[in-house]
């Protein structure tokens, strides 16, 4: 093709070489001069109208704006969607737990135990699990306040330093008041402050004091300390009111130790025996083999009696004042003596004389060095009741000029708190570092909020030579400041970075002594990574030299054999503890393990007293308000009739009655601290005189998650036996149901309409040991946090609509004869108790799956019963047809709903929502939900294995409840894997005819499925409850 000669021109302008054209020839869009306004045409009008209508209607139904702001510069160690874990330490007063914090995108969302700690050994408690939500408490102080005015740290520091100087100048008295401080670096910081202001005295007190024990040990061994206990070595345990599985000293440790003595199987047919002597039915009493109800006024005398019984066997001198006729005491003495060196006697009493006798008993039994370790003292309770009482007396007398409350709330939680509150008004300087404006925080002038522990650097020494580090898992949310830094600023220090202080302390204290050949940074990084640092334990056991005779004679002034009046026993609430975490809805809605009451604390009385005083409880938790008077103070409290309560005694828990606490706990219950009395220099938790209870005509409805007391003799639900039977036949207590066909009776598992499933890869299953479950409920809180389970509040629980995926069923024994259903509904006066964790059983023939009209609940190829929220239309047929009643329906919209703002901040406030687990959907109104076996954890475990191109390892997937269980009662794993722990534990052998089928052979004679006879074939197995008694109830 030849080149064409033709020229095409765009227009006459090009042809004519118009200057305007040449100027713009290289531009794509030719500027056509100034913009004209064409005016508004009809077409524009229609366009605009169309746009407006569309915009208005879109705006009207607009979805709420959700802000998701991406990182501008992504932190190196944070990957969106991938959690980070940090070892840290839970510290709340003297309560301690080594933990691992799970964070997502910089937000702590879950707490689990740190298995590297030889103190807490990976255990957690309900309060530890729940504390992650306290971080996002809406009631937290946003920053500094002076009086009621928000201020800056600079101004606060200026004023505080000026006033401190003024007080120091005139030689006035300064006090730092705190709970027990576990942190050596904090104590060092306070020492610096004391050095600057020498008139400063540091006072430690505990809400639940163990001062009597320290005094007793001082008298017995020369130093005031609290020893470590090792329940795992004890074959016989006798406890006088010490709730060591629930609230006493260090339940996380004790429960784990105790559980190791309760694990039995065909090969190990021995277990510990546990006697409990107490007035209230405590969690520990509920787990006891023999439980004796005893008045608190007699408990000291019973201890003296036990001393004499043992002394008689040991050939030692007897003491006076023993009380004859306490049931099971002689038997306990026999067992203790037979197990010398392998036994343990503990008491919750805060009376030094009682504790000296206890020490004497343990000494005669040779328990020091085996089950009691005085060489390994613990720091959980260092509070000094005498110093605290003296401080309040001084404050009242106007002798104190300045006080700094370091994260403690004595105005609320000290028996003389009210007096203290009044005295604070007259002081020159009052400061509190509390991170909320609580009762004490609001009574002081200077509010200098500390960080939450999850935002702080810190260290702890829970036991001598056992250290644990705290590191922040989130940048401080508010303008708070580490309290230790505040102390240093006020002491005029220049290097106030507490992180550096802790680091330097550790360098000086530990690294410089033993660097293990590492450079400091590597050593420090390892400490931080592990979270714990432990040194060798001293092995010298001090000799007992207490004066038991003097102690026994001192008992007479306090204890009485024949008190006729009512007695009050104040105990620590299981859920909200001493009240410091009362504003945490996770704890408020955690059912008390015994009473199953939530959001309140009724007083407990026995049926006998209730009848005498005219109180009645009905099956709907309706009760009357009782007027309780102790030493002239009267309060109105609802009354709960509690099986196992010693007649003549009244139980009441502390932890409620907070007034300055935030929306969650406001106006719940009454404050029981004023009912504590100080006698012999120690705080006493029981009152024997001046206690009366009268019925008022006001009715009250409690919120209880379980209202029925007994299991109605249903052996398909609870299967239990006693050790002597178990030793003869490990299948003791098993009920093997049979289905009647026309010609024979057969095992129900052999009959099915269904073809069953084949699980070719995994077959997830769970085993729950009723013998090691203590019923504590840490699993419930862990499940709530992991799975974003909604908290619904008191009213909804009264309507019986709690959303918990996991619950602990608590059953009392009954004296009713089989068949007499009315009598079987009533619990015995001093019942045996059994706890049964109940969650979705993941049935292989799931009755819920067949009835769903839209197939929203289906079976997975790995044996899970799975719930598809998106598909659910909410007919509730599945819940009705669930024999275990574990399905939970979203009756209302629990998230983004003003109605639930106060009860469920985790789904209704911007701050609270930060705790939600992004891996689990927040369920909408009108859908069903239930336990998923933590399918998100299974999935991430599978993905990790897939990424590494290997099969999954056993133990790689741990459900939230399993991780939280301090006693290891819950075991989860793959039943298809012949080497998995669960396969070995349950002794599973596959069916030869159908190796991947659902009908696996379970070889463990203790394993049973609840409601075996209906053939739904759950994937959860329970192991029989065995009590270490001679004969089962009814035969005895």
């Amino acid at each position, binding site marked *: 093709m030849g080149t064409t000669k033709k020229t095409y021109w765009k227009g006459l302008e090009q042809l004519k070489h118009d200057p305007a054209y040449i100027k713009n020839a290289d531009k794509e869009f030719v500027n056509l001069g100034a913009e004209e306004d064409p005016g508004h045409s009809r077409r524009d009008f229609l366009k605009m109208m169309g746009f407006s209508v569309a915009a208005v209607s879109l705006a009207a139904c607009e979805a709420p704006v959700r802000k998701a702001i991406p990182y501008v510069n992504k932190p190196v160690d944070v990957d969106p969607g991938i959690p980070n874990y940090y070892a840290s330490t839970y510290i709340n007063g003297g309560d301690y737990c080594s933990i691992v914090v799970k964070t997502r995108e910089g937000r702590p969302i879950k707490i689990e135990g740190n298995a590297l700690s030889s103190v807490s050994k990976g255990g957690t408690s309900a309060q530890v699990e729940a504390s992650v939500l306290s971080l996002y408490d809406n009631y937290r102080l946003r920053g500094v306040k002076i009086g009621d005015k928000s201020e800056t740290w600079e101004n606060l520091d200026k004023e505080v330093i000026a006033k401190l100087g003024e007080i120091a100048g005139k030689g006035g008295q300064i006090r730092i008041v705190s709970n027990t401080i576990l942190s050596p670096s904090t104590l060092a910081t306070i020492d610096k402050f004391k050095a600057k202001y020498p008139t400063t005295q540091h006072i430690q007190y505990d809400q639940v004091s163990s001062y009597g024990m320290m005094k007793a040990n001082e008298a017995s061994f020369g130093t005031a300390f609290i020893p470590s206990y090792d329940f795992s070595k004890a074959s016989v345990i006798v406890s006088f009111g010490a709730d060591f599985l629930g609230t006493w000293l260090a339940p996380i440790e004790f429960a784990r130790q105790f559980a190791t003595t309760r694990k039995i199987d065909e090969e190990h047919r021995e277990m510990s025996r546990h006697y409990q002597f107490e007035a209230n039915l405590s969690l520990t009493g509920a787990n006891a083999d023999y439980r004796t109800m005893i008045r608190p006024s007699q408990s000291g005398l019973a201890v003296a009696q036990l001393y004499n019984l043992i002394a008689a066997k040991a050939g030692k001198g007897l003491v006076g004042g023993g009380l004859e006729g306490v049931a099971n005491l002689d038997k306990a003495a026999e067992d203790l003596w037979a197990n010398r060196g392998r036994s343990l006697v503990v008491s919750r009493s805060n009376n030094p004389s009682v504790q000296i006798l206890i020490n004497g008993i343990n000494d005669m039994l040779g328990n020091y060095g085996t089950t009691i370790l005085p060489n390994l003292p613990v720091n959980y309770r260092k509070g000094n009741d005498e110093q605290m009482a003296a401080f309040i007396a001084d404050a009242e007398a106007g002798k104190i000029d300045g006080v700094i409350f370091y994260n403690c709330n004595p105005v609320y939680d000290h028996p003389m708190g009210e007096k203290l509150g009044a005295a604070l008004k007259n002081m020159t300087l009052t400061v509190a570092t509390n991170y909320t404006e609580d009762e004490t925080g609001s009574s002081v002038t200077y509010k200098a909020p500390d960080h939450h522990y999850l935002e702080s650097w810190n260290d702890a020494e829970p036991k001598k030579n056992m250290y644990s580090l705290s590191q922040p898992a989130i940048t401080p949310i508010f303008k708070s400041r580490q309290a230790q830094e505040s102390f240093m600023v006020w002491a005029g220090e220049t290097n106030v970075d507490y992180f550096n202080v802790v680091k330097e302390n550790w360098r000086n204290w530990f690294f410089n002594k033993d660097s293990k050949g590492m450079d400091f940074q590597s050593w420090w990084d390892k400490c931080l990574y592990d979270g714990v640092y432990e040194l060798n334990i001293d092995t010298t056991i001090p000799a007992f030299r207490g004066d038991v005779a003097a102690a026994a004679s001192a008992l007479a002034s306090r204890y009485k054999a024949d008190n006729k009046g009512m007695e009050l026993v104040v105990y620590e609430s299981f859920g909200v503890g001493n009240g410091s975490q009362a504003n945490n809805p996770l704890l408020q809605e955690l059912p008390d393990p015994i009473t199953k009451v939530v959001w309140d604390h009724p007083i407990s009385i026995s049926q006998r007293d209730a009848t005498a005083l005219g109180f009645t409880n009905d099956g709907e938790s309706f009760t009357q308000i009782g007027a309780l008077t102790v030493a002239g103070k009267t309060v109105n409290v609802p009354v709960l009739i509690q099986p196992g309560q010693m007649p003549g005694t009244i139980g009441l828990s502390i932890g409620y009655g907070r007034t300055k606490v935030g929306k969650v706990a406001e106006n719940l219950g009454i404050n029981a601290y004023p009912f504590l009395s100080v006698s012999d220099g120690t705080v006493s938790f029981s009152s024997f005189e001046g206690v009366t209870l009268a019925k008022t005509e006001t009715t009250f409805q409690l919120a209880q998650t379980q209202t029925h007391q007994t299991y109605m003799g249903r052996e398909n639900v609870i299967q239990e036996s006693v050790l002597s039977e178990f030793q003869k036949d490990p299948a003791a207590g098993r009920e093997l149901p049979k289905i009647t066909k026309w010609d024979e009776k057969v095992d129900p598992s052999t009959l099915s309409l269904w073809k069953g499933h084949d699980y070719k890869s995994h077959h997830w299953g769970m085993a729950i040991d009723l013998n090691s479950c203590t019923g504590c409920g840490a699993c419930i809180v862990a499940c709530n946090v992991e799975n974003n389970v909604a908290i619904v509040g008191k009213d909804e629980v009264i309507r019986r609509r709690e959303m918990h995926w996991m619950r602990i069923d608590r059953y009392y024994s009954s004296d009713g004869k089989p068949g007499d259903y009315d009598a079987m509904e009533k619990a015995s006066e001093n019942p045996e108790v059994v706890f049964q964790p109940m969650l979705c059983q993941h049935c292989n023939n799931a009755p819920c799956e067949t009835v769903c009209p839209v197939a929203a609940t289906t079976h997975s190829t790995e044996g899970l019963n799975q719930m598809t929220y998106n598909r659910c239309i909410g007919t509730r047929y599945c819940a009705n047809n669930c024999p275990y009643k574990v399905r939970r329906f979203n009756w209302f919209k629990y998230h983004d709903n003003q109605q639930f703002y106060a009860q469920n901040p985790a789904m209704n406030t911007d701050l609270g929502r930060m705790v939600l687990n992004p891996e689990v959907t927040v369920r909408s109104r009108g*859908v069903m939900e239930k336990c998923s076996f933590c399918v998100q954890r299974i999935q991430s475990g599978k993905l990790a294995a897939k990424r590494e191109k290997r099969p999954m390892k056993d133990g790689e997937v741990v459900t939230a409840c399993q991780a939280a269980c301090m006693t290891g009662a819950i075991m989860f794993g793959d039943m298809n894997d012949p080497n998995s722990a669960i396969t070995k534990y349950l002794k599973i052998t596959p069916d030869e005819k159908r190796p991947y089928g659902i009908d696996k052979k379970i070889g463990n004679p203790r394993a049973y499925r609840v409601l075996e006879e209906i053939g739904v074939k759950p994937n959860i197995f329970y192991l029989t409850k065995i009590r270490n008694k001679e004969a089962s109830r009814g035969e005895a």
Partner: protein
Amino acid sequence: MQASSVFRESLVTGGKTVHDVSHDISCQVENKPSRLWWMAFGISLVLLTWGAYCCWMMLWHGIGMWGLNKTVGWAWDITNFVWWVGIGHAGTLISAILLLFRQRWRMSINRAAEAMTIFAVICALSFPGFHMGRLWLGFYWALPLPNAFGSLWVNFNSPLLWDVFAISTYFSVSLLFWYMGLIPDFAVIRDRAVRMGHMTRARIYNALSFGWDGAAKTWMRYESVALILAGLSTPLVLSVHTIVSFDFATSVIPGWHTTIFPPYFVAGAIFSGFAMVLTLLLVTRKVFKLEDYITIYHVELMNIIIIVTGSIVGVAYITELFIAWYGQVPAESYAFYNRVMGPYWWAYASMMTCNVISPQLFWIKKIRTNLMATFVLSIIVNIGMWFERFVIIVTSLHRDYLPSSWTMFHPTMYDIGQYTFTFGIFFTAFFLFAKFFPVINMAEVKSIVKSTSEKKSSTAH
């Protein structure tokens, strides 16, 4: 069709002629409604409005407005559903089975009974609708429709899905059957309107009657269609409540899981349906002065059916108790012990009194031919049948296998409101029907009056 027998009393009294029939029934449509009608209709509207308010509150806030809880997932909702469906059964039984058995006494009552069926089924259907947590999705997700959700399909194992098919079939066949019967009667009203010069009315009723011409061939087709529809409806009388009973019978809950349910439910349905027909007809008869068409003889025959079905139901109750004892299944024994002696004993006692004992009074002729007694007993039977469903649903659920989960159910204002809502629908619809549609099947009734169109000087017998 001549139906005079010397041995039988005439089914229509008062010596009515064919013209009288047309006049007596059509004039209800043609005349202005009476004050009584306005009052009744007004009350119905009040019920409907109040019910609609409760219904709206429930829809806005959630199912939690009702008194249900974690253990009792169904209570008044499904009780009312089963109750209304049961009531509907009488209409179908009368129009289909009695037609096939050539029971001529049905002719005066079948129209109203069928209308009652239609409205009762509408009321019944509202409950499975409203009881869903997510009605806005559930109303079509429960249908096997082709969809864009991937391979999602309904679950054919679920008795609730069977319900969807059973009730929708039942509703469509009943509606068709009812409307079919109305066509010739609409034509009568049209013809009268033409004569009276009401052209608007004539046009409307002409359209409603599909231009019925009254030709012999049309009548022939009409009769065959009626027979075919009767044949189709007959199995429905048995199947619908059988399938409804499967909701319970196929479950694992003691007290629900019983094979006796299908016949027991069907008998109960007919029982309650006849009672409801009686309640309505005795009122209609009075308000519209139809004493000559709905006679004591009709009432007595219906009362006899009530004795028979009431006794079947009674036997079923006793059989359940016997089997609970004889079967020796602990859970089932307890479920029935709990029904009789547990906290809901009063519901069980009401059920027994109303359903088993009170209908036995109809053995006494004086009572079964007394209109007031019949009216009172018909209401008692319906109360009893409501309690029967409540007893089955709530007392079985509230204490099932694990005692830890045992609860009680307390209705709230909104449970009651939802029930009121359906009464509002039912009565509003029924009074509109009574005003605008012929309440008695004129075409059929004409076949049983004396075949002369002349008025006799004296009344018959």
